[in-house]
C-alpha cells in the first residue's frame, strides 16, 4: 500500500507519496534535513503515515 507523509513544520505543508513505509521514512528525513536543517525520527514518521491509492512518487 502506498504511503503519504505531510510535513507539519511551521509554514510548510510539503507532501510526499511513496510506494512503502521505508521510502516514506527516507523521503521525509531527506526533506526535514534539506529544507528545515533538522531531523525527524523514524517512529515519528511511521506513526503518522497515511494509506493512499493515488499515483506514486508525487511530491508537492
Amino acid at each position: 500500500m502506498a504511503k503519504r507523509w505531510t510535513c507539519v513544520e511551521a509554514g510548510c505543508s510539503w507532501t510526499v507519496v511513496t510506494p512503502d513505509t521505508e521510502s516514506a521514512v527516507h523521503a521525509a528525513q531527506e526533506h526535514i534535513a534539506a529544507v528545515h536543517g533538522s531531523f525527524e525520527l523514524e517512529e515519528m514518521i511511521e506513526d503518522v503515515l497515511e494509506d493512499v491509492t493515488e499515483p506514486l512518487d508525487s511530491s508537492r
Partner: protein
Amino acid sequence: MAVSDPSVTSRFHFSREMIEGPIYRKYEKAIRKMWSVEQIDFSQDALDWERITPDQRTGLLGVTVRFLAGEQAVTDELVPMLAGAHRLRRFDWTMFLSTFLMEEAKHAEFFMRWHERVVGVLDPEEVAQHFLVRGKTVDPTGRFTVRDVMYEALPDYGGQLMEAIHSGTDVDVERAFVRFSAAYNAFVEGVLTMPSYEIVIDTTERWDAFPALNQGFRLILSDEGRHITFGTMACRILIEKDPSYEQCVHEVFDAYRGNVVGLVEYQKAVPDLDLDKYQNMKVRHYRNRCREMGIAPDETLIEQILDPTIDFVVGVEAG
C-alpha cells in the same frame, strides 16, 4: 477444542492479535536496536574538553548537567506508567515499558560516564556545582507562568495515576494514564526536550568536537522516538475508547503553556544559534504529537510559540 478453565487461561497474556500490534512491534524493535554505553569511546571528547575555552565549557556543561539530572528524573518517575499498564491488563504495554525503563536508566548511565570520563566529575557534590539554578522565570507581559515540569508535573501526575491504580475505577486509571503520558511523553519528551537534543547536536557539529556526545545523543534520540510514540499511541488508543480523554491532554499542555511558548534557555546560552529554527521545530513536534494522538492541536498555542514578541527565556529571569 476443549473449553479451558478461565482461571488458567487468565495466566497467559500473549495473543496473535497482540504480537501483530503496533506496541508489540515497538518492543521487538527496542530489542533489535539495543546499544551499550560501553561501546562508546570517550577519548576524543576528553581531548576536546582540554582545548575548548572556559566560556564554552560553562555553556556546554550547563546543558549536559541538566540532561544528567533529567535522565535520572525520568528513570525514577516511570514506575506509575508500568503500574498503570499492569492495572489496565495490557501486557504488550508492560513488555514495551520494560525496555523503556531500561533505556532511560542507560541514558542516565551515558551522561554519568560522559561527565566522569570527559570532565572528571561524578559525585552529586561535583556535578551539582555546574547545575544552572534557575531563578524565577518572569514573562514581562505577565501573560504566562513558567512552572517546573520535570520536578512538579511528572511527580504530581504520577501520584494521581498511582492513586487511581490503588483505589479508582478503570476509567479513573485511563484518565490519569492519559494525563501522565501527555505530560511525560508528549509534552516533556515529545515537544519541550526535542530542541535541546538538537541544540547539543548542532553545537558539537559547529565546534567540530565531542563525537561521543554527538553519538550518544543520536542513540538516545532513536530510543526516545519509540518512547514518545508509545505514549502518544497509548493516548490514542484510550482516546478512541473514550473521546472525552482528549480534554485531559489539552489540560496538561495548558497548565504548562508558559514553558513551551518561551525560548529554551540553551537557545540563548549557545551563541550563533538560529532561534527561529527551534521555535518552528517545537510547532512541528507539537503538531506531530497531536497527529499521533488523533487530536486537534490548539492553534492558539501554535500562534503563541511562533509569536516573535513572546521571547522570554524559560529558566532565566527576564530583563
